């Protein structure tokens, strides 16, 4: 009988050498450990032929063999599993340098991106956003803004007329008048919008975008204008950026200033962008003309205001180094996909 045990053992030891898969192991294992037909199970059927006094030891030997076999097959299963895992991984090998799947989002227009950036800054300072009309009448676009009919300042802005009284807004300032007529101070508004002037070349487009701001409250001064704009340029162009005011003229402000920002490219040392001056002109501003306040029914002896206007195309072009304003209106995907600062 002991020979039989030895044979089975040997058969298992030899048999498992050539096994390559969990399935083969399972099939082979079944030959020995299947409850009914397994060779080790069948040994138990020999019990009846065994002398009663040897039956206990025979039973133990069968059990030992069974345990031994189970342990062998368990080991083998582990080996097979790791082998198979390895094989599966190997089969799934990829070239990680192949291109990734495209997950394409579009972009907001560069002007919208710039506009949002500026709105964020001024919203934080308490400015409401008010939109302008693209078609205005003469009173709101000019007269209320202290630019009467014979005023040469009308020539500063070549106007598109739609009828004797109606025109395409040349500035977003009309929105300020509408607001001041409807609302009493304190007023802090930001008016982004499309404006139109009869001008068409590499730096001028007949339609462009302005963003004007207006504050009306008690004791608003030129120093407040400077403080607010310093804050603004630092948020947009980075810490350490500063502004320079210099005299200018707009009919709706007095005094009026042109505002330059220290060059964000060279930090003021002088470079190609700032044409060696260290400064870049970005906006016009001033203290709201008393006549404009009075035109809107706000007492200029009680209140004062500041106003500023930014050309969005100009700041956008400066920020991204876009050299022709036309590129902003041609909708070339190759251009639009480059500016993704959404």
């Amino acid at each position, binding site marked *: 009988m002991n020979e039989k045990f030895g044979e089975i053992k040997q058969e298992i030891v030899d048999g498992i050498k050539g096994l390559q898969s969990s399935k083969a192991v399972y099939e082979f294992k079944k030959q020995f450990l299947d409850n009914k037909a397994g060779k080790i199970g069948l040994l138990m059927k020999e019990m009846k032929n065994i002398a009663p006094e040897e039956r206990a030891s025979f039973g133990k030997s069968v059990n030992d063999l069974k345990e031994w076999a189970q342990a062998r097959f368990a080991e083998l299963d582990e080996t097979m599993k790791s082998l198979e895992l390895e094989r599966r991984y190997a089969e799934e090998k990829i070239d990680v340098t192949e291109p990734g799947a495209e997950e394409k989002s*579009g972009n907001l227009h560069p002007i919208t991106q710039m506009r949002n950036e500026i709105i964020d800054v001024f919203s934080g300072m308490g400015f409401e*956003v008010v939109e302008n009309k693209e078609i205005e009448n003469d009173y709101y676009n000019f007269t209320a803004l202290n630019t009467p009919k014979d005023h040469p300042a009308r020539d500063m802005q070549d106007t598109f007329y739609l009828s004797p009284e109606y025109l395409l807004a040349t500035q977003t300032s009309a929105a300020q008048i509408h607001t001041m007529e409807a609302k009493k101070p304190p007023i802090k508004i930001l008016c982004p919008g499309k404006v139109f002037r009869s001008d068409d070349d590499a730096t001028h487009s007949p339609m462009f975008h302005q963003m004007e701001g207006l504050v009306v409250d008690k004791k608003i001064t030129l120093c407040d204008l400077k403080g607010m704009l310093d804050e603004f340029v630092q948020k947009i162009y980075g810490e350490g950026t500063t502004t320079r005011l210099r005299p200018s003229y707009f*009919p709706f402000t007095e005094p009026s200033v042109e505002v330059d920002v220290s060059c964000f490219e060279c930090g003021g040392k002088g470079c190609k962008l700032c044409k060696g001056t260290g400064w870049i002109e970005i906006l016009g501003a001033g203290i709201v003309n008393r006549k404009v306040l009075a035109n809107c029914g706000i007492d200029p002896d009680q209140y004062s205001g500041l106003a500023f206007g930014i050309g969005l195309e100009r700041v956008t072009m400066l920020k991204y180094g876009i050299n022709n304003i036309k590129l902003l209106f041609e909708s070339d995907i190759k251009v639009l996909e480059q500016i993704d600062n959404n």
Partner: protein
Amino acid sequence: MLVPLSWLKDYVDINVAPKELEKKLFSCGFEVEEAYEVGKDISNVVVGYVEECEPIPETHLHVCKVNAGSHGTFQVCCGADNVQAGGKYPVALVGATVFATAKDHKTVEGVMTIKKGKLRGYESEGMLCSGVELGVSEDMFPGAGYNGLLVLPEDAEIGADVKPILGLDDWIFDVSITANRPDCQSILGLAREVAAVLDQPLKEPSYEYHETEVKKDGFTVTVSAPDLCPRYIGHYVYDVTIGESPLWMKRRLALVGQTAISNIVDITNYVMLEIGQPMHAFDCEYIEGNAINVRRAAEGEKITTLDEQEYTLTYNNLVICDGVKPVALAGVMGGLNSEIRDTTKAVLFESAKFARDNIRKTARALGKRTDASAKYEKGTDEYSTVHAMARALHLIEELGCGKVSSTHVDANTGNSIEPWEMKVSLSKVNDILGIEVPAQDVLHIMKNLQFAPKIDGDELTIYVPAYREDMDSYPDVAEEVIRMYGYEHVKPTFMPDALVTTGGMNAKQRRELKLKKDLCTTGAYECIHYSFFSPADLDLLKLAKDAPERHAIRILNPINEELSLMRTTLAASMLNAISRNQKKGNLSGRLYEIGKKFIAKDLPLTDYPDERETLCIGIFGEKESFFTLKGMAEKVAESLYVKFDYIPDKKSFLHPYQTAKIVCGGEEVGYLGKVAYPVADKLDLRTDAYLLEIDLKTLYALPAGKASFKPLPKFPGESRDLALVMDKAVTCGQVEDCIREACAYAKNVKLFDKYEGAPIPPTKKSMAFTIDFVPGAEPFEAESVDHFVKKILKNLKNKLDIDLRS
């Protein structure tokens, strides 16, 4: 405005370098657009003395020994016919820069650097120069116009730089003058500012002249249109001798690019440049009726101006007439009939103020802008009108070219040219600035600016010169003070006294931004197109003659026809954008724009039109279809928390069977569809394109939807797939509605497959739907869903004759 430094120095001592002056002007509000030395292109040219001069045989050339003082003595070959031993000429040393000229020796062809050379075997180290080669004209230096060497004065120091001798060391400033300061549109006007900013006294030019006893008897000036001409001054000058102006005057005119004509004409031009007041001179011989009348032109009246152009005038144009006929187009140009000739013996000088908008309108209407009209358009002042006449008469005497009569007529409306008193509170001035400018500084600044100030406590009294028409109230004083005191004194503060306000975007603005961002996630790029478009765009869209889109607002003065109508649809701009992209090789893409349509209540406009925010999407490329665009439409609905229905429709520019109108809450809000082939062909599109347009103004008017939480179903749902067979005419939408109608628990109904062909009969098609059944408060019972399906199938059979596919 061009300002020669040498001319400016007549009125103010300038003790700073040109670059420093530029900075000073900039700081007080006068941007110098360009500042350059007159001879900036000329260098290393010195006074050369020709010691020996021998002809080179068989040529027109001479070989010269030129003494250039401390620079050495050089052999120079020279082709000019006026070179001779003992003469002094400009010599460009080796390494010098001068203008290169063409074969005619007159036309400048850039700048060249002088090198050592050899001519006909003779070494030549340097070049003797002509006026043209140094950029000097006859008006700037006598003899410089000769087509040969420029002859230098005998007393010129050998070896010295020629620039100071020829005036090439002068500087020209191109200054931009803001619209509020027309009084600075002249050398004297700018000199006032320079004097103030440099803290130097102003030296006025001389206005003195001596009237003789002679009178032009009976001469009258009538201003029939005083609204357009508040002041007209005429002065009769006789015994005129027409001739050349003196060098100093010709030189100044030349420096600002004006050609000298004759002494009388040059005086009018000179005074305009110096004082800023346009002037005119009439030849008295051709003034009929011994009278001047300033009046509006008669309709159809004609005038021929000095440049021999004939114009037909209207009532809106102002003319200067003699007793019989128009002799000048007021403020623009004189008439040919009374122009100054070589034979002129007596002239009438005119100095007048005309209404700036009238001159502007005339200049525009006739397409005729002159230096005079430009000055008038910006605005002139009566102080200068008076002073210019005096100055011109002074120059008549200084140049000795005529005699000043005592016929002086000043027709005016009584406006004073004396300074007027203005009192302002210093504290109000400081309140605007936000800083306290010391009273002494205010006094000093206002004094420098010719305001003759006095301070008494808080009260500042100034006397505003009549030429400062921009001065109105204390903010103007604040500006005068701070631009001279310096903007660097303005310290940043942040509205310490202002009330707190809440800021940010309103609901509509936030919705719009969200919509834009949501559209970007579908891979679409935002575009911005012009608010105007072309009549041709309406034709591109094949719109019917009476289509509402053709009722567009027209721009009266468009840049061109292509930009002449306000948009009534955004579709054409989008189609053109797609076409541009395809022409550049971008054959697929997604674009969208949120812009406005302009709907006029009536034309021409008498009221604000309706400005309607509109969304337009354009997609194109192999992978796009009606349904990819519809997916984007659904994205829009989702973003705005609304629901769209789609109903087959037709549009003139879209595919007849791939177009739907979009309906929201029973109202038509837009359309989507495939671009019709003829339209695509017209635009040379290489891939299919699809368009969508939605009126956002209607959607924004709906109550703002918002994201909200619904508790998750407590009980599991079930899904069933149904493959259905139906007539080809039945639509997906009909089936979906029919399914939902039959069972309230059928939450999501989604088409996932469609099929036509055997074994389905040829008149039929198959569509397969997934239906998600979601339980309510109670769980589904074992048979519930089967029961729902039966109900649904029954409804489909009854309403649409639809069978389950076997």
